[in-house]
């Protein structure tokens, strides 16, 4: 079944839409977890600092990279959507705007990922 998709290239609009929804719902799920952990900060340093081992685990750091990639992609693609919505000539530059959004994404994500992986390596 997968093989029937071989060589298929999703159109940009479809790809960016699917990624926008996937990253949006993913970040929402993390937001729930994040509200729970910050709620626990009210119970004092012992409990909160104890729980932080989760965020310092290498597997979770990789998860954070995926999370931050999602936030950056959703932000860059969201700006592209707003430009197409409100700029009357936007639809003529759809392809350029898509590549522009991806460029903005990589411009922010690559340095962030390098800094985060560096911090992890320093702790190991």
């Amino acid at each position: 079944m997968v093989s029937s998709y071989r060589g298929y290239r999703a159109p940009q609009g479809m790809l960016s839409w699917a990624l926008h929804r996937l990253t949006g719902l993913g970040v929402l799920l993390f937001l729930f977890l994040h509200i729970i952990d910050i709620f626990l900060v009210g119970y004092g340093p012992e409990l909160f600092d104890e729980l932080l081992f989760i965020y310092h685990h290498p597997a979770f750091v990789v998860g954070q990279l995926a999370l931050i990639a999602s936030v950056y992609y959703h932000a860059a693609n969201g700006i592209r959507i707003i430009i197409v919505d409100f700029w009357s000539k936007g639809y003529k530059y759809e392809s350029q705007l898509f590549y522009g959004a991806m460029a903005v994404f990589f411009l922010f994500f690559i340095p962030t990922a390098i800094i985060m992986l560096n911090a992890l390596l320093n702790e190991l």
Partner: protein
Amino acid sequence: MSSNRVGREKPVGSNFELYSWYFFRISGIMLVFLAVIHVMVMHVFNTAFDIDYDFVAARWESPFWRMFDWLLLIMALTHGLNGARIAIDDYVQSAGWRVVGYSAILIALLIFGVMGTLAIVTFEPQ
């Protein structure tokens, strides 16, 4: 609307969907700044290993960061749950399950909104 456009069409005929459409874009622009600044402060200018109870306490000494975090909380929660609502509209066809889905969204809004607000507003360093 022309078939040239790619985004979700600006809704007509329902005020709620129109406001939701505008709200997505306004909260989205705010979140570009709020969420990206938040990520950068936590993972670029500091690292995940600098963050602990004392870090949070020092940050929330400042009313500015409490206000910032609360605005981020409310915008992220409402923008995200509005997205979940649209996803339910797209994927859930049965009327009964839609009621279940919409209810879950309202309950999540209430519980996580209250939990987050309490955490930010009532925090006192020990």
